[in-house]
């Protein structure tokens, strides 16, 4: 690797660390000024500071802010230490944006569909879709794995582990 590439990587790494520290600092300020006052109810009868429900959240938020500041100063003034696997990792998939969008959509299906459609049909749908996105084209694997594995897992959880999984529109049938 040439010196220019190493320098460019170091600059990029340093910038990333500064951005991370800056965002963490901003998040801790947001927490201290808005989230904790709105999210933590403190009774008027609190006798001692450590007994207050807001004591630990404030202490932790302040500590996060302090360490973020230390990290920022470190990133600005000290030489950047590259992570051991930095640069060694494979690049992004050519269609990674589309794949991520599809993955997010399928994760959303996993979250919102089971109550309507049932856990088993949702799992079959998502598993077959993910297998296809992952590059599987053999119908036997797509449908064989995509249907049989969710079915077996469903039967194990529902009938052996006695977990009342959502059955959705198939409630009577299942």
């Amino acid at each position, binding site marked *: 690797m040439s010196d220019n590439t190493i320098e460019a990587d170091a600059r990029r790494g340093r910038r990333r660390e500064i951005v991370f520290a800056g965002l963490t600092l901003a998040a801790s300020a947001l927490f201290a000024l808005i989230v904790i006052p709105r999210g933590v109810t403190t009774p008027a009868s609190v006798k001692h500071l450590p*007994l207050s*429900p807001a004591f630990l959240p404030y202490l932790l938020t302040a500590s996060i802010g302090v*360490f*973020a500041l230390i990290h920022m100063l470190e990133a600005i003034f000290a030489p950047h230490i590259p992570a051991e696997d930095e640069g060694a990792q494979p690049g992004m998939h050519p269609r990674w944006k589309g794949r991520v969008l599809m993955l997010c959509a399928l994760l959303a299906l996993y979250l919102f569909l089971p109550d309507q459609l049932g856990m088993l049909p949702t799992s079959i749908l998502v*598993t077959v879709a993910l297998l296809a996105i992952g590059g599987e084209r053999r119908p036997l694997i797509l449908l064989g794995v995509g249907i049989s594995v969710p079915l077996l897992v469903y039967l194990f959880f529902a009938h052996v582990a006695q977990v009342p999984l959502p059955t959705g529109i198939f409630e009577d049938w299942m």
Partner: protein
Amino acid sequence: MLENIASGFELFFTISNLLAITAGVCLGVVVGAIPGLTATMAVALALPFTFNLDPVTGILLLVGVYKGGVFGGSITAILIRAPGTPAAACTLLDGYPLAQKGQAGKALNMALYASCIADFLSNLSLIFFASLIAGLALAFGPPEYFWLICFSLTVVISISGDSLTKGLISGLMGLLTSTVGLDLVYGTQRFTFDNFNLMGGVSYIPLLIGLFALPEVIDFYVRKVAPVVVKTADKSRVTLEEFKGSLLSILRGSFIGVIIGTIPGAGATAAAFLSYGEARRTSRSPETFGKGNVEGVAASEAGNNGVAGATLIPLLALGIPGDVVTAVILGAFMLQGLTPGPLMFQDNITIIYAIFIGLMLSSIVLLGSGKLAIRYFARIADIPRHILLPVVLMFCVFGSYAVQSQMFDVGVMLAFGLLGYMMMKIGMAAAPFLMAFILGPLFEDNLRRSFLISEDIMIFFRSPICWIFIVITIFSLFVGIRRELRATRAKRDVIRSKGTK
């Protein structure tokens, strides 16, 4: 005494007892290996089967399930980075990198050996030191617990990965997340924003699954090629040299597990991380930890399994359940008309000895069933990633849902999965987050309970136990920070010297 032991042998050696312990361990290993299904859930599921069994058979079935479940959690942690139990999250730190190098068999076998040895030593301590150690556990009040948790939290330094400040921020974020829910003292809401599902806090199983397993799934679909090619696991074995090199860590981890297991509420996760931290601190090559050091697997599994027998100490000696699993086992004792505690040692000593014999045998059964499980589970490593990961995601969803039978937990898992992925991308270790999240409620609860007992801050210095933990906490902090700073300085010196050339 010899007469009692002989009667215990007579009571134990029946086909039904041997079958119960074998079936229990095998069931535990399988259930423990499924992300989301914990050893606690496995024991609770097995409880109804004990109603019609003899007391010894029923108890041994449950104890077998528990012990198998504790080991089983490490299998999927090593193979697919999805810990079956929270304590197994520590095992994945070195187990998964070993699997990535094609040495899953080595990691699994070392986990099994460490588990069996620690389990055996834990059982021995239960048999010989139950009353002594139970007395020590009784000396722990809120201030002593507080310092114990502080000491446990110092492990965050050892598991911070490449950046100490990022590791500390990760740990603090974990502590902050643990404050979500109803306040323990006043019952007021904290970060729940009137959401009923958050009143009891964030469930740790969905958090655990999301933080560790989901980032691998997301990463697979983002990268150009599969980021991990886990090679056939069967060819790697633990060499005698590696075993000898890890033996001290196993013994130390077992000891830590026994002590932590004896103290009600402290839990296997703390023991596993403490044992791991100590192994790294005393290692000649601490930089190899977290990158596939087999000693790291041994240390975490020894700490994890050292707890198993020891949690029965307060139960049998004092009648106090140390955690949820032992509470279920206590229920099984009571269903059989037995009341654990000092009186049981007088009235039902034969049953006690029969259980002890069964416990000792369970370590050997664990070795056998573990070997069998490794042979079949290790084949998971051969499944192509594009087929395996959709199935992993399905287990993540089912496992998260199973905790409280609500879709909200699936949402929690997905949210922490995204957080885990972001942490992975910015090089922030997730292990400190989990460690702090699990210890957080204990930390805050004991801090505030101490203040409720006395308004004077001197309550935190009230006993020799407090002082012992204060000293070792300061020592651990000092040594840990000094080592990390030295390592960082050395790396920077190398970079500077390259820059001046």
